[in-house]
């Protein structure tokens, strides 16, 4: 980013008569500087617009053929060129919600513990470890899931669940290794660091006066958490959870490796399923027909719209709940 005006001339610039006359308007170097930056900033919306355009062009064929029925149909048959994405959408939503169900209580517990209760020496290291865990690549979680988590779940957890809750349809049927529940478990492990670190930041932003006031009124430390700290940080914590949901919806590799990849909706969580991201990862490089490509691009389009809606809803809700004082919005 070199400028046409040499720095030396420019540094003494204000003394030069022409520059004195020009005071108040920007010099040509300033205008050039602003132009370069404007182009960079302009490139961001242009790129996103291009992404949407390309996704739309890619999925045009399938959109014309299946329309909105694509979202509600359940048949996925590349040979007959019939495509319906309902089981995929269902699988994405179910696996993400199950992951939240597991991850939210755990990560909130950890966040509250390390901000409110943990010995001071422990706080910084635990936070650091959590940050590192968020950096583990998805494919490594997948590898670990295949060779360590699935055998463990299959041997201990799944049979236990079946004995305890076997009367529910969710925990019946044969136990496969790769399954909806295995994918949700790895997803929960993956999104925990995100929910933890954002809620930790939110809890740190709660003023000490809140804590002190409720303790001074005779609350136990736990009551201080539930009556003064959590309500104050509520909107930010909500944002953290939605952020985790957004991550889970788009997560690809680990889920692809663990969910079993079957285009079916099964009542049992021990049965294999499929998600939108996983079907793209598996079938895109092997698709043979234009319609198959187009259907997969359509899936990508639906997934994109879904994540934009979730993230948008999160911002809107946080903004509404916070009523001006947007705690934790910076962390988001």
């Amino acid at each position, binding site marked *: 980013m070199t400028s046409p005006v040499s720095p030396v001339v*420019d*540094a003494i*610039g*204000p003394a030069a008569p022409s520059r004195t006359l020009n005071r108040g308007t920007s010099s040509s*170097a*300033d205008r050039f*500087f*602003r132009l370069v*930056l*404007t182009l*960079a*900033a*302009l*490139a*961001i*919306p242009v*790129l*996103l617009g*291009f992404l949407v355009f*390309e*996704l739309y062009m890619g999925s045009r064929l399938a959109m014309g053929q299946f329309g909105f029925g694509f979202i509600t149909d359940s048949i996925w048959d590349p040979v007959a060129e019939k495509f319906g994405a309902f089981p995929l959408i269902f699988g994405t939503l179910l696996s993400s919600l199950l992951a939240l169900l597991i991850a939210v*209580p*755990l*990560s909130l*517990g*950890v966040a509250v*513990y390390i901000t409110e209760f943990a010995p001071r020496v422990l706080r910084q290291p635990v*936070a*650091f*470890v959590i*940050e*590192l865990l968020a*950096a*583990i*690549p*998805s*494919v*490594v979680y*997948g*590898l*670990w899931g295949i*060779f360590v988590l699935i055998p463990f779940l299959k041997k201990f957890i799944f049979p236990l669940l079946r004995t305890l809750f076997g009367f529910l349809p969710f925990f019946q049927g044969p136990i496969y290794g790769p399954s909806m529940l295995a994918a949700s478990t790895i997803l929960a492990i993956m999104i925990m660091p995100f929910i933890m670190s954002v809620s930790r930041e939110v809890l740190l932003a709660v003023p000490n006066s809140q804590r002190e006031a409720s303790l001074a009124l005779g609350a*136990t*430390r*736990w*009551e201080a*958490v539930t009556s003064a700290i959590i309500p104050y940080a509520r909107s930010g914590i909500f944002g953290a959870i939605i952020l985790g949901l957004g991550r889970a919806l788009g997560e*690809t*590799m680990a889920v692809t*490796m663990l969910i079993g990849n079957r285009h079916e909706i099964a009542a049992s969580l021990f049965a294999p399923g499929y998600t939108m991201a996983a079907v*793209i*990862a598996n079938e*895109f490089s092997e698709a043979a027909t234009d319609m198959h490509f187009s259907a*997969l*691009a359509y899936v*990508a389009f639906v*997934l*994109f719209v879904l*994540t934009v809606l979730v*993230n948008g809803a999160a911002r809107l809700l946080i903004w509404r709940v916070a009523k001006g004082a947007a705690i934790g919005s910076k962390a988001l």
Partner: protein
Amino acid sequence: MNRRVLRRLVSNLMVGLMVVAVILAVLPLMFILINLILKGASSLSVEFFTKTPVPAGETGGGVVHAIVGTLMIVGLASVFGLPLGIGAGIYCAEYPASRLSTAARFVADVMNGTPSIVVGVFAWTWIVARQKHFSALAGSVALAMLMIPMVMRTTEELIKLVPHSLREAALALGYPRWRTSLSIVLRTALPGIVTGSLLAVARVAGETAPLLFTALGSQYLSFNIREPMAALPLTVFTYATGPYEEWHRYAWATALVLILVVFVLSIAARIATRRRFNVNA
């Protein structure tokens, strides 16, 4: 009296439950690291870092093709993504009230939430489908798309941390605006921006999904960005889902190398910020 005991009991019980939550949360993560070292370290050798893979069924060989591939793909992605992200970040910090800044910020948040596999499909339709062949270049473009919003937001945040008095002092001394921005404000924020960039590089280095049908992966050492190229995460995926015992061993070893790369980048980035800025990341 009884009630007070009960309340204290509940409080202690909840703290106990939170400790359990900490253990449950840390346990799987500990196990991942332990498994990686136990199952991966034994396969690491000089050969592993210097040779390309041998055909399935034979022993030996290495992943030098994937190491070179990751360096090239991520390097090229940084060349595309970092200047654009940093430039847009400076714009948003310098002209915070302009309509373009608001738009860029909003769009960056949308892009940040976009699944990486969707960005992969975009790079495929844009580049691979038009050129009719897979290429490392398309993979780099996809990774750059993921880097831009991250780099942009950290750059903006860090420039905003620079005290206004510094900027005013420079302007009062007669510095034009562009020099104030570049050699005063940007220079002060530079360590933080380097950190943000390193973190973005570390994150995309582990991305697999956007490379699946762009860089595709390959068994050969290649330096040509217009051809399919291997990358560490792709190699982990191929080996992990393959049928051979030997491949699984290599998947663990490659994953260990990948995670070392990512951790070294992240830790270096964090140490740099903490020392210079004292910002709690």
